[in-house]
Each structure stands twice: as C-alpha cells, then as structure tokens.
C-alpha cells in the first residue's frame, strides 16, 4: 500500500474528536495511507481543486467527507468534485451523523460512492470505520498503485 503513487486520504471533518477517532480506527484497520485533515470546506476545496500538493497534480486520493461543516454544506463540496472533469472519478465517502433518507439519496444522486452514518455507539462506529478500511484496501482507485 505504500508506494510512490499511493492513495492519499483527504478527511474533511470539523469535529477534531471525530477526526481523531476516525483516524485511530482507520489505522487499527491496517490502513497506513497518508491522511490529510481539513476542518473547514473552503480550505479543503482549495486544496483539492488548486493546491500543487493536492490530488489534481499529486496522484490519487480518496475523500472522507462530513456533511455538517461550519462554512458550507458537504454536499456542495461533493457537487464541486463530481463536476470537475479531472477529479470526478475520485471516490468520495460521506461520513456524517445525518441518516435522513432524502439527504442520503441526494448524496448518491450527486455521485457519492459510499454513505456511512456515524453511529453514536462506539463499537458500531469502530466497526464501520473498520469496514471502511477493508473497503479502502480492496477498491481500485483510478491512477493509483494502491
């Protein structure tokens, strides 16, 4: 999984605690890819779309996206990514507290690849992240040597 063009995980999550728990559990699942963390939508979008070190120039990436961000809605970020010719194949995993049916449908309509509800129960949460880790270890991401 390591390698020159290994997948970078871009985590957009405003809650530091959640970010930390996600990271811990992703690591526990045996995923050791680089994780870049953003706590707001503007900086994250800037990195994804324009940064020299971002996914546009620097190889494959996977987005872990929370929908409730302080400065914008996660669905907007999702829409921007899926509208970009270069980046639209990049997998986006929505990881959020909302389990509203309409919201989930909307995310899939916009092209999200996986939608995971953050369970409050920690065991379930850990299991979900673990499954995400397993998912990350088997999926093929375009342009990568995962």
């Amino acid at each position, binding site marked *: 999984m390591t390698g020159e063009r290994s997948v970078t995980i871009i985590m957009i999550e405003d809650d530091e605690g959640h970010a930390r728990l996600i990271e811990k559990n992703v690591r526990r699942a045996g995923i050791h890819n680089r994780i870049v963390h953003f706590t707001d939508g503007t900086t994250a979008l800037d990195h994804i779309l324009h940064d020299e070190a971002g996914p546009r120039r620097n190889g494959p990436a996977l987005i872990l996206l929370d929908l*409730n961000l302080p400065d914008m809605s996660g669905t907007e970020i999702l829409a921007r990514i899926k509208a970009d010719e270069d980046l639209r194949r990049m997998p986006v995993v929505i990881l959020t507290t909302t389990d509203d049916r309409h919201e989930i449908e909307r995310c899939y309509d916009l092209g999200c690849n996986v939608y995971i509800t953050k369970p409050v129960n920690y065991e379930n949460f850990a299991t979900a992240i673990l499954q995400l880790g397993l998912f990350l270890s088997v999926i093929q991401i375009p342009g990568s040597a995962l």
Partner: protein
Amino acid sequence: MAEPEQVTEQERRALRGTITRFLTVGLVALVGIVASGGVLMSMNQRQIELIGHSYQVEREIANIRLAVARLVAVSREPHGRKGPSALLARAPVEAGLSLATERLSDLSRDNPRQQARIVMLTDAARKAERNASAGAVLDDTGGYLSPDPTVLVNRLCDVMAAEESRLLDLRIARLRDIDNGLYVILGLAGVLLAVVGALIFTTLRSYTRELSASHEALHEANEGLEAAVQERTAELKRANAEIQRFAYIVSHDLHSPLVNILGFTSELEAANAVLHAALDKARTERPDSIDPTTCVVIEEDMPEAIHFIRSSSAKMDRLINAILELSRLGHRTLRPQWIELGTLCHAVADTMQVRLAESGGELVLDEPMPEILSDRLSIEQIIANLVENAIKYAHRDRPPHVRVTARRSGPDVVIEVADNGRGISEKDHDRVFDLFRRSGPQDREGEGIGLAHVRGLAHRLGGTVALRSKPGVGSTFTVTLPVHYQAADPS
C-alpha cells in the same frame, strides 16, 4: 361580532316602532274618516228623505189647489145643472180635497207653523165645500157674499208652498254641503293613505338599504375573520415547522459531541484495559511495588466512571433519537389511502407475537372492523404503540389480555385498545401523553415517547386520543379519527 348585531337589533326595533306608529296614525285617521263618512252619509240620507218629504208636501199642496179649483169650477156651473148631477160631480172633488188636506196634515206633523196653517186650511177647505154644496156662494157678478174660503185656501196654499219651497232650497243646499263634505273627506282619506303608504315605503326602503349594508358589513367581517384564521393557521404552521426544524438541528448537533463522548470513553476503556493488564503483570512480578490506591483507581474508580459516562450518554442518545424521530415524523407527508383496519391490526398483531409469547398474554381483535381513509403508517404506529404498551405494562399478577376494537361513529372511526394491565393513576392521565413523561414504577425500559408519539399522530390525522384507566384494573385508550382524512391547506 356582538356589537353590529346589537346595532341591527336596535335598528330593527326602531323600524318596527316607526312602522307601527305610521300604521296606527293611518288606522286612526282611516277610522275617523270612515266614521265621519258614515255620519255624513246618514245625514245625506236624512236630507234626501227630507227633500222627498218636501216634494210630497208640495205635491199635496198642488192637489189641494187643484181640488179647490175644481170645486170652484163645479160651483160655477149653470144653476140648471144643479141637483143630483151637480152633487154627483162634486163628490169626488170634495173627497180629493179632504184626502189631500189630511195627507198634508200628516206630512206636516213635524212642522208646527205649517200645522197651524193646515188647521186654518182645513177649516177654509170645509167652508169652501160647504159653500159649494150650498150653491149660493157667488152672485152673478162673481163677487163674494162673504169672504171666499177658496181664496183663503189658495192664499194658505201659496204661503205653505213658499214655506216648503224655502225648506226644500235649504235642504238641497244642505245636501250639497254634505256631498261636498264627503268629497273632501274622501280626498283627505286618499291623501292620508298615500302619505302613510309613502312613509312606510320609504321607511322600508331605507331599512332594506341598511339591512343590505349591514349584511355586506357582516360578510366583509366574516371574510376578514376567515382571512385572520388563515393567517393564524399559517403562522402556527410556520411556528410548528420552525420547532420541527429546530428539534431536528438541535438533535443533530447534539449527536456530534455524543459521538466523541462515547468514542473517547471507549478509548478510555481500552486504556483502562491496558492499565489493568499492567497491574496484573506487576502483581505477579513485583507485588510490593503496588500502591493500593492505584489498584482502587484502576480496578474500581475508572471502570465506574466509564460506566456512568456510558450509560448517561446512551440515555442521552436515545432521547435525542426520539426527538429526531418525532421531528422527522412531523415532516413526513401523509398519504391517505383506504385501509382495512382488520387487516392492519392483524399485521400489527404479527409483529407482537414474540412479545406476547414472552409475556404469556393474549391479543384479541374484535372483527369485523371498518375501513378508513387515512395514512397507513401513522395508524400502524398508533395501534402498535398502544398494543405494545398494553403488553409491556401488564399487571404483575396476571398475563396481559389486550382487546382491540374499531367501529364507525358518525363521521369518525373509534379505535379502542383495552388491557387488564397495571393501569394509570388518575393524576397521570394527562401527563402520560407528554414527551419523556411516564407513570407508575419505572421498572420497564422506555423513554416516555410512545404515547406522545401516538397523540402527535392522532392530531396530525385530525383526531384525538383519550384514556380511561383504573390502577390495578386496566386501561383503555380510545383513538377517534375522521373516516376521511382531510389534508390541511397545502400552504
């Protein structure tokens, strides 16, 4: 709205008064006119009679003159014809004269002056008769030997005729006056009727105008009221939607920190397990080095703290989920459809089989049940919640027996869920329908959401829910829903 009605009532009373006054005045005037008309008519009649009387008197006077003239003529006949033939010719003339004087006397009984004259006339007439029968009244020159009674008769007749003619003129003049009076009165009556009619007409017309104006005002007020109601309803709906949205956002935002609390509690637990392991290892390897306080912290205090954080957070999570669920149901669009309540209750009963088996209880569905046009999911949830409660809050001495009935009642369907459970104390009958409120010993799982949910659903379907219960005997929940669910305005 009370004020305009009062005004109208007052106006109505005033109008009634006005019309009654007009009618009374008109009626009194009419009665007066009729009465005076009657009086005038009888006066008229009297005058006509009097005039006829006068003519009769005149006629009799004329008869007397004629009789006297004949008498004179008979007595002037040549002497040769005197004798029985002259007597024969004189007899009817004399009879006519006495008859005429008698009639005249009868006719003039009311007039003393004429009466006096008649006495003289009768007297003169008799003399004339006598003279005529004597045959020696006239000499050859035609002069009178004694004053000629016929002349007296004629003169009296002239006087009486003059008197009667005066009376006749007077009576005719009176008759004309009476006729004129009648015309005047008729004219007055006509004018009066016209005036009263016109007054009533104008009053009625103005009243009708006022009536239609007040009707219009009422109509406007009604429309205003309707608009006000609609406005309030819209406001309420907005407020309700706001509360729903608020509940949704709050419960969502509360979720995030809870994820952290529970997550890091688990991390702490994992850390505690590590410490526990280290402590166990130390116990076997270097028992002397162990501080008993450390043992208590690692083995008792930390697990206890973690346990409380966990259970409290878990409870908080359930409450938040409940609010979230309720607010979500509030958002849900109701989809009315025809539902066979019997079939629906059977489906609900199927989901309760496990619980029923556990409790050893029994669920009876009273069939047949009516149909209802309403939201299926809502009704399912109402019945499921009530049945579940009935099983859950069974009396500790007996297995639950739950009976579900449904019947039509006018425009409603009444669904009842009755149990033989532990019952609900009177003071809690309202409270149990509040969110997070429960009744009786808190020995069963639950957050106090079910009945709040049932009530919310019943209200949304345009119905109500009521409770009858006796502690230790059982409870009956009655849900009344309209047969035809009417969706509120889309606005």
